[in-house]
C-alpha cells in the first residue's frame, strides 16, 4: 500500500509539487518579513520553520484519504484483506516520507535565507525532524480520515490538526532553536522527550481509533 501510494504520486505528481512550492513560498515570505539581526532571528527561526512545515505538509495529509474517496477507491481500500491498523500504518508511512521530503528542501532553504547554522549539527536536527514528522503525521493521518467524511474536508483538516499539534510545534521549534545555539543540554533533551512522548501517545491512540474513523 505504501509503494502504491508513492508510485501513484510519482506518476501523477498531484500533491508533492504543490506542497513543496507552498513550503518554498511560505519560507520566502517568512524570511522577507523576519529580516532581523542574527541574535533575534535565532529566537524565531525554529517556529517559522515548523509552521512552514506544518502548513505545507497539510496538503499531503489532506490528500491521504480525500484522493481515495474522490477516485472511488475507498470501498476497495476497505475491502483490502488487511486490518485497518495496516491501512493506517501505510498512510502514516507515506505522510512521514512526504514530510521528510519537504524538510529536505525547507531546512537547507531556511539555512540559506536566514544565514543561521541550521545544518551545523545535522544529527540533532534529524532527530527532531523524525520525531516531529511522526507526531504530525500520526495526528494528521487519523484526522484526515475523520475530515474526509464531512462536507468541508479541505478546510477542516488544518482546523482540526493545528490545535492538536501545538505542543509538538512548540517542542520542535524550541529544540530547533537550541540546536541552532549549539545547546544540547537538559532543556534540549526535555523538548526531544516531549516530541517522543507525543509521537508514542498519538501513534498508539490513532491505531486504536482508526477503526472507528473508517467504519462505514
Amino acid at each position, binding site marked *: 500500500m505504501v509503494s502504491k501510494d508513492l508510485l501513484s504520486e510519482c506518476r501523477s505528481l498531484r500533491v508533492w509539487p504543490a506542497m513543496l512550492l507552498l513550503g518554498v513560498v511560505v519560507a520566502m515570505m517568512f524570511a522577507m518579513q523576519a529580516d532581523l539581526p542574527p541574535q533575534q532571528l535565532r529566537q524565531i527561526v525554529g517556529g517559522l520553520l515548523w509552521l512552514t512545515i506544518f502548513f505545507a505538509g497539510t496538503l499531503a495529509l489532506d490528500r491521504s484519504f480525500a484522493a481515495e474517496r474522490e477516485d472511488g477507491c475507498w470501498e476497495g481500500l476497505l475491502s483490502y484483506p488487511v486490518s485497518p491498523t495496516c491501512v493506517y500504518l501505510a498512510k502514516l508511512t507515506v505522510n512521514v516520507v512526504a514530510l521528510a521530503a519537504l524538510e529536505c528542501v525547507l531546512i537547507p532553504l531556511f539555512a540559506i535565507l536566514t544565514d543561521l547554522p541550521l545544518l551545523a549539527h545535522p544529527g540533532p536536527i534529524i532527530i527532531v525532524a523524525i520525531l516531529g514528522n511522526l507526531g504530525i503525521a500520526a495526528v494528521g493521518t487519523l484526522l484526515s480520515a475523520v475530515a474526509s*467524511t*464531512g462536507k468541508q474536508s479541505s478546510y477542516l483538516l488544518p482546523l482540526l490538526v493545528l490545535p492538536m499539534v501545538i*505542543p509538538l510545534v*512548540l517542542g520542535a521549534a524550541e529544540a530547533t532553536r537550541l540546536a541552532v545555539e549549539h545547546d544540547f543540554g537538559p532543556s534540549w533533551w526535555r523538548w526531544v522527550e516531549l516530541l517522543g512522548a507525543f509521537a508514542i*501517545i498519538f501513534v498508539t*491512540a490513532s491505531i486504536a481509533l482508526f477503526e*472507528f474513523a473508517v*467504519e462505514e
Partner: protein
Amino acid sequence: MSQTAEKHFFNDYLWHAVAAGMVTTAIAAIFLLAPMEETMGIAQRIVYLHVSVAWMGLAAFVLMAITSGMYLFRRDLAWDHWSRAALEIGWLCCSLTLATGSLWAHAAWNTWWTWDPRLTTAFVLWAMYSAALVLRSGVEDPHRRARMGAIVAIVGMLDVPLVIMATRWFRGIHPKSPHMEPTMRVVLLISVVCFTLFFTMLLLLRRSQLHIADMLEDLQAQAEA
C-alpha cells in the same frame, strides 16, 4: 392542560427559577459580599466569574471525552447527546474564560493577551472545541457524526496534558494561587458552586433537547415510511 404536560411545565419552571436564583446569588456575592481589592479595584471581581467558567470549560471537556468513549463502546446515541451538550456548554465556558481572562489581564498586566501557559492552554482548548463544533456541523448521519466527534474529543483529551506541559516550560506570569482574604475565598467558592450548578443545568437541558429532537426525527421517519 394534561397532567404530564402540567408536570413538565412545573419542572421547567422550577429549573429556570433555580438557574436564575443561582446566577443572582453569585452576582450578589461578587458585588455585595466580596471586599474591594486595594490595587485592582472593581476589575478584580472578574476573577470570581473567570475561575468558575474556566473550571466548567475543563470539566465539560473531560465529560465530553468520557461520554465519547462510552458512545464508541456502546453505540448508543444517548451518550452522544451528553457529549454534544458538553461540547456546546464547554465551548461557551471556554469563550467566557478567554474574554474574562483578557479583561482581567488588561487591568492587572496592562495587556489584553500574553502567551502565558494557562492562557495558551485555554486558547488551545477553545480551538479544539471550535474545530469539533465545525466538524459536527458538516456530518449529517447521526452515528457517523457521533463517531467522528468522539474521535476528536478523545484525541483532544490526550493532547491536553501535553499542551499544559509544553506551555508550562515557557516562563509564565499567571498567578498560581493568589493571596486572598477569607471573605474573598468564600465568595469565590459561592461563585464556583453557583455557576457550576447553573451550567450543569444548561447542560442537562441541552441534552434533553437533543434527545427530544432525535426522538422527533425518528417519529417523522416512521410517519413518512
